[in-house]
């Protein structure tokens, strides 16, 4: 039964209905609500007139501004490319030495290279290019395939052990697993390799092992790593005499590397990045080593 009552707090009448103790006031819709309702509707209707909005069978209302998101994107891409054109052309035309001699261009290389490196290379080589377990450090001056900008650009383009026809190819054979070396030889050569970067290893007890290991090295490893173990960039054989290691320079890891072999992999970027991007990246990666003495 509808029995209107007056709410003592607000002085308003109720609607006269009651549900398990709940009542409702008959308050009119506040003026502010109506005003804002009108404002939002006016905005919407204006937008309908100006922009594409309503479907009309197989087409739609195009709006007075006659705009479209595809058109807008295309225009802005043209503008952005035009704004970048001067330096993009300069980088395309100039050779590496000329670019490196131009501080303005090198500033752009640094900025753009940082972004390209972060989005494409950092997943393996780290944000700072310092590599990580199983991935080469690019800032350590120690280059497997050579560290000049042209060489780096080539590595980026074709990859290492990749599907590219001109891919750089290298493989460290599994000397232990494939029984090319017996366990004693393997241990000796590992101790020798370890001693190359750790002169303190050459104690009187170790001298014989190291000598035996050197003999194994000269007959088995020197073909790629060189007689002096300084590596060979032509075949991607790393320098074994310095403090930089891809897989680790402790004796256990060296034994594991000689036993099971190694074959790193780097994808080919030639089709994913433009030649300008690769040029910028090569200069950027080259500069990583320069900045870290």
């Amino acid at each position: 039964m509808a029995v209107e009552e007056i709410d003592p707090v607000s002085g308003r009448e109720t609607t006269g209905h009651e549900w398990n103790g709940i009542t409702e006031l008959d308050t009119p819709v506040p003026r502010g609500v109506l005003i804002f309702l009108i404002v939002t509707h006016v905005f919407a209707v204006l937008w309908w007139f100006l922009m594409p909005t309503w479907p009309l069978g197989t087409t739609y209302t195009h709006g007075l501004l006659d705009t479209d998101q595809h058109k807008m994107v295309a225009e802005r891409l043209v503008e952005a490319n035009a704004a970048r054109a001067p330096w993009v052309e300069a980088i395309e035309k100039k050779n590496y030495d000329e670019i490196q001699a131009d501080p303005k261009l090198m500033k752009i290389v640094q900025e753009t290279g940082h972004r390209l490196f972060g989005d494409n290379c950092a997943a393996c080589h780290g944000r700072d290019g310092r590599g990580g377990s199983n991935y080469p450090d690019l800032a350590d001056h120690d280059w497997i395939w050579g560290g000049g900008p042209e060489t780096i650009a080539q590595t980026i383009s074709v990859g290492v052990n990749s599907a590219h026809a001109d891919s750089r190819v290298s493989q460290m054979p599994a000397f232990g697993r494939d029984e090319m070396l017996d366990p004693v030889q393997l241990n000796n050569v590992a101790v020798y390799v370890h001693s190359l970067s750790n002169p303190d290893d050459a104690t009187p007890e170790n001298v014989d092992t190291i000598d035996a290991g050197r003999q194994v090295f000269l007959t088995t490893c020197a073909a790629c790593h060189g007689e002096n173990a300084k590596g060979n960039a032509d075949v991607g054989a790393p320098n074994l005499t310095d403090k930089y290691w891809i897989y680790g320079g402790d004796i256990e890891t060296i034994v594991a590397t000689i036993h099971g072999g190694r074959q790193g992999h780097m994808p080919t970027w030639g089709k994913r990045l433009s030649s300008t991007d690769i040029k910028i990246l090569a200069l950027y990666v080259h500069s990583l080593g320069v900045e870290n003495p």
Partner: protein
Amino acid sequence: MVAQLTSSERQYCAVILILMVIVGVAMAALGKSDPLGVHGVIVIVYSGVLLYLVLSAFYGPEPQEDRQASYYDDPIKVGIALSMAWAVFGMFMGVWVASQLAWPNLAFDAAWSTFGRLRPTHTTGVIFGFGGNALIATSFHVVQRTSRARLAGQISPWFVLFGFNLFCLLAVSGYLIGVTQSKEYAEAEWYADLWLVIVWVVYFILYIRTLARRKEPHIYVANWYYLAFILVVAILHIVNNLAIPVSWGHAKSYTIWAGVQDAMVQWWYGHNAVAFFLTSGFLGMLYYYLPVRAGRPIFSYRLSILSFWGITFFYIWVGSHHLHYTALPHWVQNLGMTFSVMLLVPSWASAGNALLTLNGAWHKVRDDATLRFMFVAAVFYGLATFEGSFLAIRPVNSLSHYTDWTIGHVHAGALGWVALITFGSLYTLVPALWKRPAMYSATLVEVHFWLALAGTLIYVFAMWNSGIIQGLMWRTYTEDGTLTYSFVDTLVAMYPYYIARAFGGLLFLLGAIVACYNIWMTARGAPAAAVVGDGPAQSGVAPAPAE
């Protein structure tokens, strides 16, 4: 539970459960080399346990009293317990996935615990498990009290409740074993979706029939919202999940929608799941428990009408704002955007109606943490709906889309609005339902309030910061016209906010655990004096108010 049923009703229950076991056996047999088989076993075990419960009380004494003289509250009690259990599960999963974003090793190198599988267990756990059970339980309570009629069925309330929870279980267990149809908030596969359709239609019929039995001349506002929730969710669920299974023996299916139409249908569903599941249903809660707790009349019936029809009409148009700047035609985006803007005022009218209802009861808001839950929920509702309309504007969306701002927005709504209104409602409902004078501990309600509020604020502020920083970093150019930041730079910037977000979520989870304890102890406590008049209207007896 079973003691309240007559022997013929027990027979019906047994038949339904035996049919479910048979379906489970068929699923297990047809899909024995497929995840479908695992789900067959789950259906068998689930139905089997319920069948055991029915059969073990099968020959017990029949109910003697006139059941029509009392409200049917048992399914509500079980619904509350299930809701809280899902809350703890779903929020724990949320804290886990949030922590994975800060510390990826927390996936422990297993397939089932990767982010992609755990994340939907969080969303399904909290939205459907926690929210859905709370909606079912409170809707059963509200429709009876505001209609002064008992639920129109003895078995169907149980069918709705346990059927819905079977759906949730199939969904969540499926994600862990790799079953998904890759539609956000609709990840469950075809057989679970079909099952939910059956459950939902029964829910709709039960609700309509109970309303038809009402002894009040008018249908109270809360029921409009609950009914909109039930009806529209049914439509959304069916349309978005239209799919062809690979075979009867495979869990995998393919949607009948293709390309950009699929995206549009998905976000029409996705946004209206927010609208009709997470808004309409919970507004139904707000419209009942807030005035009851505040002891105040609703501020304006006219405002209720304006906001109900505004929300119901405008929401259904706005899904395309999830697809701004995509392959979706520009005109569809604009249409969704303008309707999103027009939606703002009806949304704010609801929030305003709730807050103005508290006029004359502000001292209670200050003193009573339960009412404060509902007050803060209304504030967050206003905030989240403003933010939603704002983010739907295309140029704003170009900054916010795909960033953590979206996550912050969703959680302002999900934690601040949906969860807080639920906790406020449950703290009002639980003592009334178990006929206790009050919650076991008012202090623990207070503790829960501050944990929940602190958790929400930490979460939302962390994601606002993270999202806006992320969006700005993505679009920052150097003066030479190249992007300043790589993607990984933005991850580094977001790292501290991810830790803060996980911490905020943890506080919220702790609050829910406190609530579980408090509700459990209340249910176990000593009953208060019987409430006079808390029963359906009897013929010839004038309805009397409950309190």
